[in-house]
């Protein structure tokens, strides 16, 4: 029996001829990431181990590790500032050169940086100290989030134990209407399988719609596999993947690992994209999905275009198309996901469109996505957001409410001040 792409990558990384779902393996790791929340956690783990006589002499491979500053930059307060100082010293001590520092050129949300900089290649095993590490799997890699003890272990040993997941396949076909974005597709999938529908499993996407999808949209799909509990999200690499990486890394040859034709999937789901509606996930779960028109007219206090899910260049372009020549009716914030994307948005005139509409442009940061800082929600406030989670208190006060939607829906809602299907503008 053949192997799925996830199984194939894990068989290579564990030096096994084959692996089967359920197998416990010790996998070699190709790349690892920490940020300003998981990084200090990792440092703390090593400090505690030091007290027990275990000294970390050197990392397994500092060139395979990178650091993002994203959750609490610009420093939200003194503790956040100290965390970054601590992380910087640690990186210098252990020779981690890929440190994407706030205020020093390229930096941004860790998952965006990972693909924007071409840090992970098809076929690799990549782990990050953040749950949305799944995002990078759209490049055709095994990409999964871990806690800081596990990441500390990887930084020391270059390997980690994993249970080989079953793979669920989502085939998306049909003619994709202009107003449907990857966000609508993944929200509909999560709605069908539930917030734990893919717990411990791999979610793979295929079909003509995925084939025709630009890379940035693909990252939206894999990003939100986390919201269905998935271990990893993955898409087989193709010409779009290679073109995307070559733009960033030059004329390299990539090892385009694919699944076997006779691979076995635990479940196969078919979606006809033509039948999909622009959708929102209502509070307080990403599985709580309805067509926008069902809640059309719900008044909002704020529109938020940000995060690793919804502030890539393609997201900003889609939002700008809707906001062009219009004025926003509610507080609207746009936070590009990385410095490089911010710069492209300026050059393309998107930032002018946003500012003329009345929106505020913030620096790349996780910001209010996790309720950290930069425009968190107050008591009972309602927000239309391009982010990925709407748990109680996620973006601020526990009584606030977040509706998750595509950049087009959020932009349309910003103009009317109410949840709005872009077709009804």
């Amino acid at each position, binding site marked *: 029996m053949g192997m799925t792409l996830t199984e194939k990558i894990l068989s290579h990384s564990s030096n096994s001829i084959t692996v089967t779902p359920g197998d*416990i393996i*010790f996998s070699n790791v190709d790349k690892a990431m920490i940020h*300003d*929340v*998981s990084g*200090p*956690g990792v440092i*703390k*783990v090593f400090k505690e*181990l030091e007290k027990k006589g*275990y000294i970390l002499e050197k990392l397994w491979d500092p060139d395979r590790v990178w650091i993002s500053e994203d*959750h*609490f930059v610009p420093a*939200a*307060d003194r*503790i*956040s500032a100290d*965390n970054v100082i601590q992380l910087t010293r640690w990186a210098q001590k252990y020779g981690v050169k890929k440190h994407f520092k706030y205020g020093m050129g390229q930096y941004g949300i860790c998952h965006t940086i990972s693909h924007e900089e071409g840090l992970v290649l098809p076929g690799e095993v990549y782990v990050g*100290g*953040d*749950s949305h*590490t799944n995002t990078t799997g759209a490049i055709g890699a095994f990409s999964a*989030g*871990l*806690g*800081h*003890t*596990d990441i*500390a*272990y990887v930084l020391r040993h270059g*390997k980690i*134990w994993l249970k080989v997941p079953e793979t669920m396949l989502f085939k998306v076909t049909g003619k994709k209407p202009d107003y449907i974005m990857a966000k609508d597709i993944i929200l509909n999938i999560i709605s069908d399988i539930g*917030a*734990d529908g893919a*717990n*411990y499993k791999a979610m793979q996407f295929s079909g003509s719609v995925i084939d025709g999808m630009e890379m940035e949209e693909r990252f939206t799909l894999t990003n939100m596999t986390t919201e269905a*509990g998935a*271990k990893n999200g993955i898409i087989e690499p193709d010409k779009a993947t290679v073109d995307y990486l070559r733009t960033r890394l030059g004329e390299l040859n990539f090892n385009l690992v694919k699944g076997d034709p006779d691979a076995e999937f635990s479940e196969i789901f078919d979606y006809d994209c033509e039948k999909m509606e622009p959708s929102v996930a209502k509070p307080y*779960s990403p599985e709580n999905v309805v067509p926008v028109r069902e809640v059309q007219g719900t008044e909002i206090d704020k529109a938020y275009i940000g995060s690793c899910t919804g502030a890539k260049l393609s997201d900003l372009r889609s939002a700008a198309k809707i906001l062009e020549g219009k004025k926003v009716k509610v507080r609207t914030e746009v936070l590009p996901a990385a410095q490089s994307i911010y710069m492209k948005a300026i050059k393309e005139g998107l930032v002018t469109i946003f500012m003329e509409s009345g929106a505020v442009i913030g620096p790349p940061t996780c910001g209010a996505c*996790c*309720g*950290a*800082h930069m425009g968190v929600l107050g008591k009972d406030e309602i927000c239309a957001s391009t982010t990925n*989670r709407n*748990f*109680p*208190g*996620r973006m601020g006060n*526990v009584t606030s409410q977040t509706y998750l939607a595509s950049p087009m829906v959020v932009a349309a809602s910003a103009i009317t001040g109410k949840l709005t299907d872009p077709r009804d503008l």
Partner: protein
Amino acid sequence: MMVLKGNVHKYNRPNIDTDVIIPGPYLKIHDHDELAKHAMEGLDTDFTNKVSKGDFLLVGHNFGCGSSREHAPIALSKTGIKAILSPSFARIFYRNSIDGGYLLPIEIEENILEKIDDKDEIEINLDANTIWNVTKKEYYSIKPFSKIISDIIEAGGLFNYKIP
């Protein structure tokens, strides 16, 4: 024989997420005792006053879904919670609890959720894979840990575990 004894704190709802267990603004904090003060703040602001050392949580399925923040099992364990009983756990929360050696995520059948009440006193026997409900005088079974999980628990966390 490994037997844990304590009282149950029951929150019978599914999908209790990490933002509820330890809200985002506290992620910058890495002092474990400080984190404990805010455990479950998004659900029950009185939580930390109710819990005594060695107690258990009884919760609905998919407990700990959401972020990879290890702050979640850390904060709960530092309040005194020794084990969590649930029909299922989100994968990163489960791993973090075991690999960090903080507390035990124990899987139970969905119907046991109805049989145990808030404040019941129970004894968990990890060798026999049973729960003895002292208050109700009833036995229930728990799902045994897989081999690697029980080995890591025995080692006291991933860093002490030797790859076979």
